C-alpha cells in the first residue's frame, strides 16, 4: 500500500507499523517526533500503530538553532 512520509509517497507492506517504518528507514525513534495524519503519536505507540493506505506521516527532529 502507499503512504506519504514528509510529503514523499512510499510503498509499504500491509501491516507495517510506525516502528517497522522507522526501522526500514534506518531511523532511531528517540529524539524524533512522528505525526500521523496531523496527530502527534506518542513514542510508546510506535509499535502498536499500524499504517493504512494513504496515511500521511510527518517525521521531525531537533537541529541546531538560536
Amino acid at each position, binding site marked *: 500500500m502507499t503512504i506519504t*512520509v*514528509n510529503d*514523499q509517497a512510499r510503498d509499504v507492506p500491509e501491516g507495517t507499523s510506525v516502528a517497522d517504518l522507522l526501522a526500514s*528507514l*534506518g*531511523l*532511531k525513534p528517540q*529524539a*524524533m*517526533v512522528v*505525526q500521523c495524519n496531523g496527530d*502527534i503519536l*506518542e*513514542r510508546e505507540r510506535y509499535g502498536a500503530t499500524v499504517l493504512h493506505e494513504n496515511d500521511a506521516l*510527518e*517525521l*521531525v*527532529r*531537533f*537541529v*541546531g*538553532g*538560536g
Partner: protein
Amino acid sequence: MNEDYLEIAGRRFQSRLMIGTGKFPSATALREAIEASGSEIVTVALRRVDLSKPDDEGILSAIDPERQLILPNTSGARNAEEAVRLAKLARAAGLEPWVKLELTPEPRYLLPDPIETLRAAEMLLKEGFVVLPYIQADPVLAKKLEEAGTATVMPLGAPIGSNRGLRTRDQIRIIIEQANIPVVVDAGLGAPSHAAEAMELGADAVLVNTALSDARDHGAMARAFAMATEAGRLAYRAGLGPVRDTAEASSPLTGFLEA
C-alpha cells in the same frame, strides 16, 4: 554570588548566559562551547527529518539534559498557528513545555512580527506553555507580553547574527526599567563587551549564538562570554559610578611639593 540567581517561571538558574546551537561546524565544537559557557539553557530548532541522512543524530546528542534546559524555538513558523504546532511537537518529543517564541517573517533581517508574536504568545499561554518571546526592543509590546503572562521578554540588540551589539540600548534601558519579568537580550551581541554592557544596564540574561559559532576557538569565545556576562552582572550589583563631563583626579590634586 550563589545568592544571585536568575529565576524564570519559578525555576532558578545560576548562569545568565543562554546559548543558541546553530551554525557550529561540528557537534564537538558545539559541545565545547556549551561546556565552556556554563550555560544552563540552550535553544534548538525543529525541522523535518532528512530521509537521505538517517544516521544524522540531530542536535540533542550534543546536549546534556541533566545540565541544560533544552529550549526549542519556533523558527520556521510563518504564523501563530505554526508556532503553536512547533511548540506542541517539541513537547511531544519529550521536552519540557518551554518555548522560545520566534516569528520572523522576512529573511533579510529576521526581525520579529509584533502582532503575530503577541497573538501566538496568548495561544501558547492558553496551552500551558512557558513562553519566552523574541521581540523588537519595543517597551510597549514588552509590557503587553508581560501582562499576557509570558515568562520573559527577549528584546533584540541588533539583527540575528549581525554582531552589531547593543544598537537598541536606549529602548532596552526602558524595557528593563518597566519590566517585572526577566529581560533577556537576544540577537546581535557579537562580543563579550556587548554582553557585559547589556548586563550592566540591568538585563537579567543574554542569549548568544552567532558570536560563538563565528569564532575560531568556540570554547574560548564561550568562556569569554560567560565571564563578561557575569562581570556585567557583578558590576550592575556593585554599583557603577556616574559618567562625568570632566576629570576627577585619582591622585591628590596638590602639586607634590605642596602637601
